[in-house]
């Protein structure tokens, strides 16, 4: 089974702190994603990566950065946390190439609920 893990289920940080959210997958997936989930807004893509050291902005990258030094690990960084970044953060991974039986499915981690006070 594909396993995507996130470093924390719950996190409380203060405004202005630098926050690191870690995501690890064990299926050798090329693609990794960070989403933000808010009520009434669904999931919105923050950043994604299709290879080590490669990254692309998603729909809402402002206030965030990412790091992918190893294929299995994708980190989301809040440079200076703000209260409007209080949210649920979901990490996901997927294969880059279409493989029969597994077309484009993304596998999700359990999420990190971040509260910034």
């Amino acid at each position: 089974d594909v396993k995507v893990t996130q470093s924390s289920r719950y996190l409380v940080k203060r405004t202005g702190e630098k926050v690191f959210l870690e995501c690890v997958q064990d299926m050798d997936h090329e693609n990794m994603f960070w989403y933000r989930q808010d009520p009434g807004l669904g999931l919105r893509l923050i950043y994604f990566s299709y290879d080590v050291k490669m990254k692309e902005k998603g729909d809402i990258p402002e206030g965030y950065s990412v790091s992918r030094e190893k294929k299995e690990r994708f980190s989301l960084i809040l440079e200076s946390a703000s209260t409007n970044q209080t949210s649920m953060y979901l990490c996901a991974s997927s294969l880059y190439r279409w493989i029969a039986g597994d077309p484009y499915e993304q596998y999700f981690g359990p999420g990190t609920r971040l509260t910034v006070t």
Partner: protein
Amino acid sequence: AQTVTQSQPEMSVQEAETVTLSCTYDTSESDYYLFWYKQPPSRQMILVIRQEAYKQQNATENRFSVNFQKAAKSFSLKISDSQLGDAAMYFCAYTTIMGGGATNKLIFGTGTLLAVQP
């Protein structure tokens, strides 16, 4: 730009009954995938069912089936014989298909929270 719309923020169904969750999308692409994901309370999001746009036959997975209307850009999920374990947030999602390799960004709807009444 592609968009996905779920117009039912909340739905409720009696155990053993059937419920249909609605999803519409907008795209100018001819080839794409559509998905329904399930997010149970405090648990990981999992894929329920997927549909390839070029296939006319509606996908089914046990008690879950879809009604895919390509011309109408509609993709509804039907849950038959609803069970208490079906209670969850359900998200409709879309991705385009690119030949060779794909960084398959998903576009999600806003979700439908399904309650199952015993």
